[in-house]
């Protein structure tokens, strides 16, 4: 399947934004992120420090490489791998019934627990990366194409934040529900 350059460029910009912001949040709070990695309990605890240091590097590298046409397909593969790892880690913990651990995504004040919705969100991002992996036939881009790309990226970025906030709200609402016992 082949997509128009408008779509692939927009998705590249969007995915780049998602990864760079994710890496930035992890750098802001390295100690907390190490605890989050431990919280997932998928790898030995001793490796948590290394992983917590490595993931933001991989994320920011992937995010920036997505912007460079020469290496964007490598970046797309790397994005798919990262997302796959995240989805697996979340699914494993959901299956274990540990659905209240911190997901480690987003800003520190936007704490949210892992959920099936998060897997779905990552699956959509995974699909975006897959689309980027199928480069379009070259066609000259007019100014109007760039207008659409910029506006669509802005809308997409906002939409991503809306989805995240909705997931955070969902967790907050859970704590509001009356408890018996």
């Amino acid at each position, binding site marked *: 399947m082949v997509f128009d350059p408008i779509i692939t460029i927009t998705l590249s910009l969007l995915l780049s934004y998602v990864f760079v912001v994710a890496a930035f949040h992890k750098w802001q709070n390295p100690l*907390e992120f190490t*605890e*989050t990695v*431990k*919280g997932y309990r998928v790898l030995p605890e001793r490796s948590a420090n290394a992983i917590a240091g490595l993931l933001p590097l991989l994320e920011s590298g992937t995010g920036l490489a997505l912007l460079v046409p020469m290496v964007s397909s490598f970046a797309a593969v790397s994005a798919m791998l990262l997302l796959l790892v995240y989805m697996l880690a979340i699914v494993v913990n959901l299956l274990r019934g540990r659905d*209240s651990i*911190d997901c480690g995504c987003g800003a520190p004040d936007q*704490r949210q627990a892992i959920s099936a919705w998060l897997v779905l969100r990552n699956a959509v991002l995974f699909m975006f990366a897959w689309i980027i992996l199928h480069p379009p036939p070259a066609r000259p881009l007019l100014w*109007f194409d760039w*207008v*659409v790309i910029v*506006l*669509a990226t*802005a*809308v997409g970025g*906002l*939409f991503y*934040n*809306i989805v995240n*906030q*909705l997931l*955070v*709200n969902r967790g*907050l*609402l859970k*704590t*509001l529900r*009356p*408890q018996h*016992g």
Partner: protein
Amino acid sequence: MAEALLISTVLLWIVVLLMAVVIFALVRQIGVLYERVAPAGALMMNQTLKVGQPIKQLELLDINGRLITVGGVPRNGKSTLVFFISPTCPVCKTLLPMVKSAHKSENQWLEIILASDGDHHDHESYIARYDLARFSYISSEILGRSYGVSKLPYAVLIDEQGKVASMGIINSREHLESLFESKERGVASLQEYIHRAVAVDSDQQAPASGNSH
């Protein structure tokens, strides 16, 4: 015609963008609202302990090997706050500064014991990193189990007669203060307080609605 389409498309894009901004703002506001409403009090969620119930006396070793008495009628006449935390719980460490300040300000009537379980080394580095040496720190599975603690961070406030004054999950300063508050007011928990308020409310409304018919 082509030009009109072009203009309309750009206009529509801009409208979509503005709508997305508005939706984001609304969703964010809802989030803030939930946050403001939520920390009104600590949730109880405890099948084992009941408020007002005397706590059985337990003799436990703290992390430094000192013998600590938890529960029973305290000899110094102080209340005890048993705060359940864990080095692996991210929320817990955001609450530590608050526990320290409570330790300082409520010193006259309150003793604070930190309780956890698991690996000894984890606790030692945790104590060193967050400067917790001033607290009695107990690592014991028995304590958590006998208090029916299932979610962290959790706190149980034991009054000066050795009875449970209040307890609940602690996620913020307001939660901890609500424990002190409910001890003072003699209300078991936020739920009970709301329950009472609702009961009083409906009592007051009942005659009014009777008159209107």
